């Protein structure tokens, strides 16, 4: 009973000490957004050939690589105060096989945030910037070549926003599938809208309402973490559902726009750790 009362007092104290702070742009505190890759009702495991995933069309598949750019984070409070993270520290490459990269760590003013906005991809401004500005994850040398983790399309001067690779038994061994016989599927989705004339624009701005699963209470003395699920199954099962057998390779192709239209459906707010 004594312990219980003590805890009550503690709880009361902490509540009192922790009201919603005034929104001040200079009063920055840490916030992270976690991109937790899942596949439908299952966690993500690479190359799980013993128990492949299955899309809505009934096609079995495994995942060998998933990586994508998250950029231009922006948060909004219930009162409508919006803070945009400095673009120089607002580009993140989330790599499924490197757990350390699953967080986009930023600094935002102390406050209670009800809304999160970010871009899946690299905006056109950054995609056309001088080489000096292309550092860190945007360095064209980062990640090695196209066969590895490289995300820069040299011949098109732009970035791959979303690189998703795997295998499926439904893929044919001819030129319409994978002539190497390895049954590989490759989805390299990019295209920022063009330099001089408008081209495809597959940049997706994602908006997440945090009110249902938990607002982010950002304070200096703690680490608020917005935990998102990223459901890779939606690549196939989103509003533009398609069959792997029919489109096992989509890179520089008009069909990329159809797949990109499925991207916003992948992101789901699971909870927030405050």
């Amino acid at each position, binding site marked *: 009973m004594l312990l219980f009362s003590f805890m009550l007092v503690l709880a009361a104290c902490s509540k009192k000490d922790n009201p919603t702070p005034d929104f001040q742009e200079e009063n920055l505190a840490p916030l992270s957004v976690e991109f937790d890759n899942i596949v439908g009702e299952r966690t993500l495991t690479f190359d799980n050939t013993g128990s492949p995933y299955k899309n809505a069309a009934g096609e079995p598949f495994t995942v060998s690589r998933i990586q994508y750019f998250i950029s231009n984070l922006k948060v909004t409070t219930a009162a409508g105060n919006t803070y945009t993270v400095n673009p120089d520290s607002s580009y993140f490459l989330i790599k499924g096989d490197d757990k350390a990269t699953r967080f986009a760590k930023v600094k935002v003013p102390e406050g209670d945030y009800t809304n999160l906005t970010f871009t899946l991809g690299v905006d056109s401004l950054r995609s056309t910037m001088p080489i000096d500005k292309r550092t860190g994850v945007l360095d*064209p040398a980062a990640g090695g*070549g196209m066969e590895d983790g490289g995300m820069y399309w040299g*011949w098109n001067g732009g970035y791959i926003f979303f690189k998703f690779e795997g295998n499926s038994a439904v893929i044919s061994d001819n030129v319409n599938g994978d002539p190497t016989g390895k049954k590989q599927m490759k989805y390299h989705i990019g295209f920022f809208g063009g330099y001089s004339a408008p081209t495809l624009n597959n940049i997706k701005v994602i908006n997440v309402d945090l009110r249902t699963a938990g607002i982010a209470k950002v304070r200096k003395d703690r680490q608020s973490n917005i935990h998102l699920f990223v459901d890779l199954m939606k690549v196939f099962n989103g509003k533009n559902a398609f069959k792997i057998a029919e489109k096992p390779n989509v890179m520089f192709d008009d069909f990329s726009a159809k797949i990109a239209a499925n991207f916003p459906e992948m992101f789901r707010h699971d909870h927030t750790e405050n």
Partner: protein
Amino acid sequence: MNKKHWIVLCLSGLFILACKKDNPIKEEIEQFLGFRKPANFPEPVYNLANNPVTKEGFELGRALFYEPRLSRNNTITCGSCHIQSSAFTQHGHDVSHGIDDRLGTRNSPPIMNLAWNKAFMWGGGVYDLDLQPITPITTHEEMDENLENVLNKIRALPKYTAMFKGAFGTEEVTTARFMKALSQFMLMCVSSNSKYDKVMRKEAGAAFTTDEQAGYVLFKDKCASCHSEPLFTDGSFRNNGLGISTINDKGLYGATLIETDKYKFKVPSLRNLQYTAPYMHDGRFLSLAGVLEYYHSEVQATPNLDPVLNQNGKLGIALKEDQKAKLTAFLNTLNDTEFINNKMLSEQ
């Protein structure tokens, strides 16, 4: 300050200038003039303010241009497909011949007057000289290497440590520095001393012959709408009506996926044609005579054919034999022997 002070100050200033003239460092700097816009050229497109050409930066860029470590198995340099004596093209090859004897699908374009280029590659896609080298380095048929490996190989060589320090202040090898150094070398590959240039700049004794002059008049009438002076290209992408190749290279469309860009290729400069055969994006014509006959009688109405090549239902550019001869005489005034022999641009 009175008049006397001013005189003393001026005299001492003169004395300092006199001293400087004897200074060997100043003479050395004077030998490297940096990037200079030829008097008859427009302002460059490249943003030189963001990458001023220095002697050290240029020399580093030159070393990298001729560095085989840019390729996967250290066999191919930029200079392998861009040979100076061929105005930095790969003479005798219709399409470029790269690593492991692999063949590309397009003809090596010249490294020439790139400071005035707003887009790169025959089929576009690259719009910044500082990003262009990534394409040949990573292309399977060219150098087949990745940039990360290249930078690691460069970092491991003591020669480059000093060169990067000289060019950029510290030894650090970054993507931006590597690219900017290569750009500095390529920016200095300026071809502007052909007979044509000397005539245009009214340099002593320079004058067209009667045939050259007649060819110049024909050129302005029949060719200049795309190959505009003084660069002899307007930098645009156009379909000049070439028969569609067996590999169905769709040109600019490959970079934009815009239907109206199908079969458009970058308008090449007409400078240094004597050294840059074969011609067109796939090197299909071995001689200038072949090209002129093509425009006269072989242009095809493929999708997006440029309207200037389809006037009043007539395809191509009508050219009589004597007109071809005069045009050829004029085009030969665009050859720049100083450019292909400039030791500063050669492998050292």
